[in-house]
């Protein structure tokens, strides 16, 4: 089953444009990825590399903060 000719022509027009978009966007994407990676590297230097205790403490702190802020906002709204 061959594609109709008008569709093939449309693809011939669109494909180079898409390729150009990919060519233009890829370096930006890789640059953003590099920034992300450098941020990650900076963060890793702070983290201890032997136990999960610090990350568990951070997780617990965020959970407690979330509960506290939610309850406070609820009280404010009730008043």
């Amino acid at each position, binding site marked *: 089953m061959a594609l109709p000719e008008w569709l093939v022509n449309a693809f011939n027009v669109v494909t180079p444009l898409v390729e150009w978009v990919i060519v233009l966007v890829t370096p930006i*994407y890789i640059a*953003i*990825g*590099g920034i*992300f*990676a*450098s*941020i*990650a*590297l900076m*963060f*890793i230097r702070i*983290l201890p*590399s032997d136990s*999960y205790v*610090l*990350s*568990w403490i*951070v*997780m*617990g*702190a*965020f*959970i407690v*903060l*979330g*509960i506290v*802020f*939610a*309850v406070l*906002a*609820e009280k404010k709204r009730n008043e």
Partner: protein
Amino acid sequence: MKLWLRAILALVAAVASYGFYVYLPEYMLVLSSTMPLPIADATITIGSFTELVFYIKSIGFMIVGVSFAHSLSEKGDTAKPIFHLFRVLLKIIFYGLFIFVEFSVIEVASVTYGLYMSIDITVLIYFMMGGVVLDLILTILDFFITFLPKKSEDKAMGEDF
């Protein structure tokens, strides 16, 4: 939304983010590092593979906490965009770690079945990274929505008095 409803939502969000940011990454990394899928081209620049799994998991735990707090807070509260910002920052670090891994190609080959295919995973990681960029833009918009109307309200109040 009511507080108890949001609490259930927060629990669901925490469990989901545990699955997506702690369990699944560890499972996938361990799966791809042990025998079933031989990795043709994998370069890891930070320490060892187990170290990478460790860092990914420890950041995943933090994301679990932030996700819980974020979905517990009501829309329009000042705390919500701040939690959102923390979550985006942690996600940036999370995917930044994955960029270190550079799984260019995972090759699946089987002589007995005559199967040979190579899967490019870098594209997948970059897709997820694009999601984070979008999330960052959303966070900035969230900040605008939460903090700008308050200023105008204050002005209006000042004019009234």
